[in-house]
């Protein structure tokens, strides 16, 4: 690599933590407590990740806690981080989008990142161990009209609200499946939006099957009840076993059609109702963001909602030596679990014994996460709301008809072949938005671990300047 145009180098770390959300923050401060020297990298300018995303300092929020659950947990971690940064035990590297991990020699890892939203510079961070705490992104299932302006992801509506204090509209329907919907709806109404309905595809009955698991996590129930109370107070109706099967409008969404679903998520004919709205926040749970590890061959597991997560042992070790994972990358389970796993992983990396209470806490929360995933697993009948001209891939504008043609006439039997024949999943987002739908429509069933040689777009000029040896 030429010295003249090479990336900035930082080295000598015991541990590089990728992602400064709940898992990564907890891991970095716990590892520093145990004496390790850490680099904490995040694509965003501030810590907190998506869960603890908060207003930019210029917005002068005096009560950021009002948009958050457990805000004091975050400020506690942030304070500990600040103390470790002062002593030089942790370097916080904000605006670092990691696009590749490399293990050039037994000496440790090279973590390659681009800097800033325009990705116009590069940096390499060297560390003996790496902890992947990259969180998750939202699972989307297409429906007619989902590309209209005003249709946004449930997580996106929350992110824009938390960081920029803005709403996509005044009257926002919230739809999809999973606990994020209640959280999103409750923050939207508290921030002044009207939410006529929360439309949840499942019946929540899945939770009732394991009262023992529920009873072990009272905090989770209190949190759920808190959202429920906020929704009741604002007159929000919760519509179960239903889905938004179409969004209407020409230049932006003006209404949605909601239909009842059968147990397989097939829309029940004759049950359609139209709801006027100027925005729709929609999402079907979260998918672990794990491609930095799967690209290197880390083993995965399928979670009860059909998502692919990293396989880790009781000490959060992946199957790659020197690579740990914590939080949503090991299966989506929320901030409390992420924090417990981050701390556990830090102990493991430092070679310290795992505190028994922490092990128990993690086991309890992990069991709840698996129950939650099972309860919200998408039913196979959702494809019943598609039309031949519904775009599945937003980036490349590939409609359902082209995918069924690839499967039925050209003989494609998996998502990869469909992708090659139709370009679905080959655009900017690299299949993050359409991946689950394409996998399902290609008849291959569950989506497999995503394979993306670069985990984010990297300008060609930078690759030319010195790609990692592979």
């Amino acid at each position, binding site marked *: 690599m030429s010295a003249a145009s090479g990336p900035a180098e930082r080295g000598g770390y015991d541990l590089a933590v990728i992602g400064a959300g709940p898992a990564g923050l907890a891991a970095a401060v716990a590892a520093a407590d145990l004496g390790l020297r850490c680099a904490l990298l995040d694509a965003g300018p501030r810590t907190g990740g998506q869960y603890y995303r908060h207003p930019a300092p210029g917005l002068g929020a005096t009560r950021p806690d009002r948009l958050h659950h457990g805000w004091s947990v975050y400020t506690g971690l942030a304070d500990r981080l600040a103390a470790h940064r002062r002593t030089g035990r942790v370097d916080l590297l904000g605006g670092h989008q990691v696009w590749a991990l490399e293990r050039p020699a037994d000496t440790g890892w090279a973590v390659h990142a681009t800097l800033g*939203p325009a990705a116009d510079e590069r940096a390499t961070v060297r560390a003996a161990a790496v902890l992947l705490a990259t969180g998750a992104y939202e699972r989307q299932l297409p429906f007619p009209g989902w590309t209209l302006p005003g249709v946004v*992801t449930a997580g996106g509506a929350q992110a824009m609200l938390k960081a920029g204090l*803005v709403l996509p509209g005044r009257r926002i329907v919230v739809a999809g499946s999973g606990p994020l919907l209640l959280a999103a709806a409750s923050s939207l109404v508290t921030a002044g939006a009207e939410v006529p309905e929360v439309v949840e595809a499942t019946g929540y009955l899945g939770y009732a099957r394991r009262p023992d698991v529920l009873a072990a996590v009272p905090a989770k129930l209190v949190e759920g009840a808190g959202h429920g109370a906020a929704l009741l107070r604002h007159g929000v109706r919760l519509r179960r076993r239903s889905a938004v099967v179409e969004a209407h409008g020409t230049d932006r969404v003006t209404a949605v059609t909601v239909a009842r679903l059968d147990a397989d998520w097939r829309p029940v004919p004759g049950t359609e109702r139209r709801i006027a709205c100027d925005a729709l926040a929609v999402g079907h749970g979260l998918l672990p963001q794990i491609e930095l590890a799967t690209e290197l061959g880390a083993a995965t597991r399928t979670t009860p909602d059909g998502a692919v997560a990293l396989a880790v042992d009781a000490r959060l070790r992946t199957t790659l030596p020197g690579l740990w994972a914590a939080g949503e990358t090991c299966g989506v389970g929320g901030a409390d679990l992420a924090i417990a796993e981050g701390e556990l992983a830090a102990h493991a990396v430092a070679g310290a014994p795992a505190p028994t209470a922490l092990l128990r806490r993690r086991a309890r929360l992990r069991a709840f996460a698996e129950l939650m995933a099972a309860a919200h697993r998408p039913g196979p009948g959702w494809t019943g709301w598609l039309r031949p001209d519904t775009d599945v891939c937003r980036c490349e*504008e590939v409609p359902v008809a082209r995918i069924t043609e690839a499967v039925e006439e050209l003989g494609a039997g998996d998502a990869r072949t469909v992708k090659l024949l139709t370009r679905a999943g080959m655009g900017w987002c690299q299949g993050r938005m359409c991946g689950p739908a394409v996998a399902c429509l290609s008849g291959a069933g569950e989506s497999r671990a995503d394979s993306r040689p670069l985990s984010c777009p990297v300008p060609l000029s930078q690759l030319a300047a010195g790609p990692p040896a592979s």
Partner: protein
Amino acid sequence: MENARMNPPMRRRTPAALVGAEPGPAHTIDFDGRPVPALPGQSIAAALWADGVLAWRTTRVGGRPRGAFCGIGACFDCLAVVDGRPNQRTCLVPAEPGTVVTTQEGNGRADLAV
């Protein structure tokens, strides 16, 4: 809101009121030749949403309008031309005083006819 008698002294609920925001003075960005206010720290996408603008791109194939979808830099639906640079994710790029945002047509290089 609409029913003022329900809660007489209540201010209209807004995200800013909720978090007790005391932002620095608003500045202005230029969106397709029109001034749009932005608060310090807001992304371009957030400033456009606050102004009621939901679309600032048209797609390559169908020429359909698009704006921010995921809000976190993952979907690339929010691309626009920012200060002459096409394909910028406006949900990530901060709105700076005087930032010039232009609706992006197709692949953002219409002026080059490629």
